[in-house]
């Protein structure tokens, strides 16, 4: 079965998605509605195990190539798993498993839960498909699965805010995916192939012609705009705060932990693999700085917890782009490590916000206060997450941000490093403000009776907080996780060779 692991990692959530409506009908008939939740949870954990089973081979430096339908690389679709894919797949599978556990209690007051779980599994299948595929059109198809199900999930509660956020996200997101499709079309017209490795080799040859054909930077721009919408790079970020604020917190956590990670992955894979030698580093540095600064400044003025987290999410994307943009081994390593850490503490923070919304019913900072006494565990976990995201030692955010700073100094970009340090301090400032107005200070009368969040919600939060601390104390552990991915980003020829050689 190990040989089929790449396809099974996609097929398990996909089939779980197809089966969830059937399972919930059957479960309802037998009066055990919870069976549906257990089924989804089981599928997510099974997926995590399958992804983990690929790890030893990939960390040895192999590229796992799976030929769908038995067609050799350029003719059919292949799945190709190298270090980068594996890291992202691990992040997604873990995040989804934790969110499946968290949703059991958090979502129990909503109607239409079988649809929620179906869409959750389909988002997962889409993320996995984008992550593991080695074919650029297939990447687009699964990107659409991921996008369409996340549009639906954002609008899940159907109230005023969420339909507004849903339609905004949908229109902006669809524009982005059509840019991606246009770029894929141009590639097909240019070289007549759709396989990423094959395209990489051929575009490399085209780039060698003098002068550089204008179509190559055009395709790159279209890809960056398309994926940039998904990761909310700054001029394209308008949808994100609305979507994160209006969606249920579990969905906000999913979007910040899984879909943005996939967006970064797709951007890295496409830009470094297909357009490696162009000046993409400088472009990423500039975009990263702008994203970081604008996201941070906007977060300062927010009065809603989830909106604040959304803007800080934008700001963290800037760090990742900055680290990756330095282009050195250390910079890419720092950027990918930050990608991992961002998924961990961002999901943690959104889960804490969800716990507060679950108990109090609002995420407006003006209406909260003095909750530290009532919800001590949630408060502690939120503070852990907030310190981690602000880059305070000994938490994981510090380790990755430090790597990015060092990489920046080594790459001869002290100004970028200085801006990043300042923005990190700013992050601490607005998180302190949020902590102050939520957990400290005057407690309004109506919050006296608030109780601690239930255990099934606390458990995934605890797991994530433990990761925050462990990766902060032992940063080398995280570095070991990330190093194969960094090797994969920089090893274009190896990837082409392994995939094309598999035929």
């Amino acid at each position: 079965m190990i040989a089929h692991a790449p396809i099974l990692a996609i097929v398990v959530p996909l089939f779980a998605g197809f089966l969830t409506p059937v399972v919930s009908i059957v479960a309802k008939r037998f009066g055990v509605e919870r069976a549906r939740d257990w089924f989804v949870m089981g599928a997510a954990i099974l997926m995590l195990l399958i992804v983990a089973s690929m790890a030893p081979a990939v960390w040895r430096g192999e590229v796992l190539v799976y030929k769908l339908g038995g067609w050799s690389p350029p003719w059919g679709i292949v799945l190709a798993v190298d270090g980068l894919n594996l890291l992202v797949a691990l992040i997604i599978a873990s995040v989804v498993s934790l969110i499946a556990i968290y949703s059991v209690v958090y979502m129990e007051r909503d109607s239409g839960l079988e649809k929620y779980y179906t869409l959750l599994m389909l988002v997962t299948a889409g993320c996995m498909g984008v992550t593991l595929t080695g074919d650029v059109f297939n990447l687009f198809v699964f990107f659409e699965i991921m996008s369409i199900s996340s549009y639906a999930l954002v609008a899940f509660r159907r109230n005023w805010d969420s339909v507004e956020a849903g339609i905004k996200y949908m229109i902006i997101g669809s524009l982005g995916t059509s840019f991606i499709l246009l770029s894929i079309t141009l590639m097909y017209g240019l070289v007549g192939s759709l396989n990423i490795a094959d395209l990489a080799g051929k575009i490399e040859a085209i780039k060698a012609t003098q002068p550089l054909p204008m179509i190559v930077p055009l395709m790159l721009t279209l890809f960056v705009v398309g994926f940039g919408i998904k990761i909310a790079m700054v001029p394209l970020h308008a949808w994100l705060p609305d979507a994160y604020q209006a969606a249920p917190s579990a969905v906000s956590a999913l979007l910040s932990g899984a879909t943005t990670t996939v967006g970064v992955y797709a951007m890295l894979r496409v830009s470094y693999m297909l357009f490696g030698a162009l000046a993409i580093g400088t472009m990423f540095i500039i975009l990263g700085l702008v994203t970081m600064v604008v996201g941070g400044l906007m977060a300062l003025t927010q009065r809603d917890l989830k909106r604040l987290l959304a803007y800080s999410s934008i700001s963290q994307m800037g760090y990742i782009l900055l680290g990756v943009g330095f282009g050195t081994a250390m910079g890419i390593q720092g950027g990918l490590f930050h990608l991992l850490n961002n998924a961990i503490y961002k999901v943690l923070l959104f889960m804490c916000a969800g716990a507060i919304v679950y108990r109090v019913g609002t995420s407006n900072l003006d209406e909260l206060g003095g909750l530290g006494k009532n919800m001590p565990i949630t408060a502690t976990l939120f503070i852990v997450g907030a310190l981690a995201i602000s880059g305070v030692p000994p938490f994981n955010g510090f380790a990755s941000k430090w790597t990015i700073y060092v990489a920046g100094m080594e790459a001869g970009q002290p100004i970028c490093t200085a801006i990043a340090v300042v923005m990190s301090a700013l992050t601490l400032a607005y998180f302190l403000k949020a902590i102050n107005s939520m957990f400290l200070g005057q407690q309004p009368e109506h919050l006296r009776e608030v109780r601690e969040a239930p255990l099934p919600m606390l458990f995934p939060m605890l797991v994530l907080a433990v990761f925050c601390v462990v990766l902060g104390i032992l940063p080398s552990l995280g570095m070991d996780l990330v190093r194969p991915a960094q090797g994969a980003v920089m090893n274009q020829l190896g990837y082409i060779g392994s995939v094309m050689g598999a035929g």
Partner: protein
Amino acid sequence: MSLNYIIAMLLFTLGIYCLLIKRNIVKMVIGLGVLTNGLHLFLISLGYREGGIAPILAGKMLENGATAEFAAAAVDPIPQALVLTSIVINVCTMALALSLAIYIYRHYGTLNPFKIRRLRG
């Protein structure tokens, strides 16, 4: 310069223009449709060859087993397959977008995206 490419790209940009300028969500969704259809037209045009036949083995060629002759005459099948996929994706996006538009109208009583602004800051 070929007319097919130009018109396809014009449709694409017309769709973008529609998305930027229209003040009605349904019209924006129509713009999205125009944009995608431009792309489909472009994709199909990429695989065309002068005087080509549809990539379906039929009639005399099928009886004679003339696959080599067929391969030299038929148009590219891959863009057609991609367009089939893309059309379905487009239909799905539209179905969901129009459903959301129905909900928007029920809540807000308007389809003007500039009036639908509860979330801000």
